[in-house]
């Protein structure tokens, strides 16, 4: 039993990390009142830019490469998210439409650029991925050490720490209060002297940064290359995590961990003797069915920020 936990927990964490980053971004964007269906595309950009950078500069930068690649992806995510921001906030474009366009644009752009840079439709493996490590000292704690500190990606810890940080910022700082205000009732925020547009821009930019990181983390730890199918649905799973987590950073983290756990369980499950003869298809759909059951059973109604999806036009009502 413990053995199963020893393998499930680290797996859950590495699987969930990219989703956590991205979902946190989604929380910030939607909390500021901008729906971001484009998370998938922003992850694509993150994966594309980090892999490209890693391949081009690994020789020069050595083991620092993956970390700098993640930063590059963050910047790329920000730049790309600005398209979403300008269109939805300044040009009052429909947020869902723009998000869908971002997804198509990112994939087209990423693959196009890979062909320009490397002359082929998918890249080689990066030579400087992120590796797991044991956490010194903590790994020696009995039981717990093996579960939580053995062979772990630092990015998983960062994701979790960041979730708490994101929660703190959203609920304890002036900036967070303003983000939430703008997403609930932009006109009220406006009359309080808050710059609604700026705040929303920041919300979207944060989502770009974090989704970029999410895509990069996926690429640096899991796929280790980039192709048209590297990011295939993770962004949508992140959106699901945002809603599942009721637009709360910690909730989103919990939801992402739940997805990771369910996936890992379905893999472990197939080697548990009891489940050996269960048709494969049941295990494949198990994570998704579990999610629906969890939603129906315990989570129920989740209410989006009131003004999310609605462009703010100064002076209208």
């Amino acid at each position: 039993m413990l053995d199963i936990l020893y393998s499930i927990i680290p797996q859950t964490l590495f699987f969930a990390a990219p989703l956590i980053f991205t979902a946190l971004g989604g929380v910030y964007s939607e909390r500021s009142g901008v729906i971001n269906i484009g998370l998938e595309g922003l992850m694509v950009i993150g994966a594309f830019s980090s892999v490209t950078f890693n391949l081009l500069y690994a020789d020069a930068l050595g083991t620092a490469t993956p970390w700098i690649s993640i930063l590059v992806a963050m910047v790329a995510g920000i730049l790309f998210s600005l398209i979403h921001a300008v269109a939805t906030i300044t040009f009052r474009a429909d947020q869902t439409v723009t998000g869908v366009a971002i997804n198509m644009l990112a994939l087209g752009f990423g693959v196009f650029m890979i062909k320009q840079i490397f002359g082929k439709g998918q890249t080689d493996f990066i030579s400087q991925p992120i590796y797991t490590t044991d956490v010194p000292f903590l790994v020696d704690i009995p039981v717990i050490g093996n579960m939580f500190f053995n062979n772990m990606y630092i990015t998983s810890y960062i994701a979790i720490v960041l979730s708490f940080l994101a929660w703190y910022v959203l609920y304890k700082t002036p900036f967070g209060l303003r983000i939430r205000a703008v997403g609930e009732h932009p006109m009220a925020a406006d009359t309080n002297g808050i710059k609604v547009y700026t705040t929303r821009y920041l919300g979207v930019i944060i989502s770009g940064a974090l989704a970029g990181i999410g895509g990069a983390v996926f690429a640096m730890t899991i796929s280790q290359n980039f192709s048209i199918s590297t990011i295939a649905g993770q962004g949508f799973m992140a959106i699901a995590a945002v809603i599942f987590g009721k637009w709360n950073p910690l909730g989103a983290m919990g939801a992402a961990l739940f997805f990771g756990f369910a996936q890992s369980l379905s893999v472990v499950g197939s080697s548990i003797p009891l489940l050996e003869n269960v048709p494969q298809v049941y295990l494949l759909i198990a994570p998704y069915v579990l999610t629906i059951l969890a939603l129906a059973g315990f989570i129920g109604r989740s209410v989006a920020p009131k003004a999310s999806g609605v462009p703010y036009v100064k002076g209208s009502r």
Partner: protein
Amino acid sequence: ACGSGDSSEQGGSDSNSFKTAMVTDTGGIDDKSFNQSAWEGLTQFGADNDLKEKEGYDYLQSNSASDYATNLNRLVQSNTDLIFGVGFKLAEDITKVADQNKETHFAIIDSVVEKDNVASIVFEEQQGSFLAGVAAATKSESGKIGFVGGEESELIKKFEAGYVAGAKSVNKDIEVDVQYAGSFGAPDKGKLIASNMYNSGVDVIYHSAGGTGNGVFAQAKDLKNNDPEGSYWVIGVDRDQYDEGQIGDNNVTLTSMLKAVDVAVADVAQKSKDGNFPGGEIVSYGLKDDGIGIAETNEEAYTDDIKTAVDEWKQKIIDGDVTAPTTDDELKAYVDSL
């Protein structure tokens, strides 16, 4: 209408105007897999015959399943003499298009289409997989090896059955953990499965899972990075995946099951150009004709005892002493006979 007009102009032209082309599946000609390999074959064929790209040999890329028929037809209409469909996914469309264009020659890779103007190119993957199993079982210290498949299908079953048979041939008691990811494009799932297998003591994993296999490599390399002395091996598929296994000075790719799509494509193209198009035939490539092979690139890992064992079984297969199984039933019969 344009197409047919052209054809009457060019009709009856000399054999030098031979034109061949391929339609990729959704992978594209740089998928590091059989599309790429097929394109390399065509390019080789072009070089051998002094043909120019676009004029003598060409390809069309498909982005989705809906594109196959469109692309096949476009090539028909531009008077291509021999059209390759790369991958079993094109089988249905080739069947239909070949039916409507009896004058044009087609070749389908990895599937069988029974039409007089279609050559079916298949590979004896079970043979190569058998040898992969032999190598894995010889390499394994734990007595546990793994197989990761993309989606369960007849084709992938050939890999699995051959692999298990090969492994059991060497070590009758070896445990083979077989898992399917349900997708050829889910590296995260591949990594989960690999992580789980290595955790449970598996030390060699053979993958036949496309992009999902990337996750298997990622996991093996990660473990290797933390434990350079440990045994975490991957056996690649289709082409030599040595590069994918490189990590610092180590390499986790034990070997790869090679499928020489390029050889087959060049061969069929040449035959066709020379007027020996194997229409209506199933052209099978196996160990015998180097259509299937096993990589020996990782000299450090691929030790002599493995090489000896593999060569021994290879000979048995070529000689027909052993027949590698292709299905669960054949596998069962084979294992029982051991």
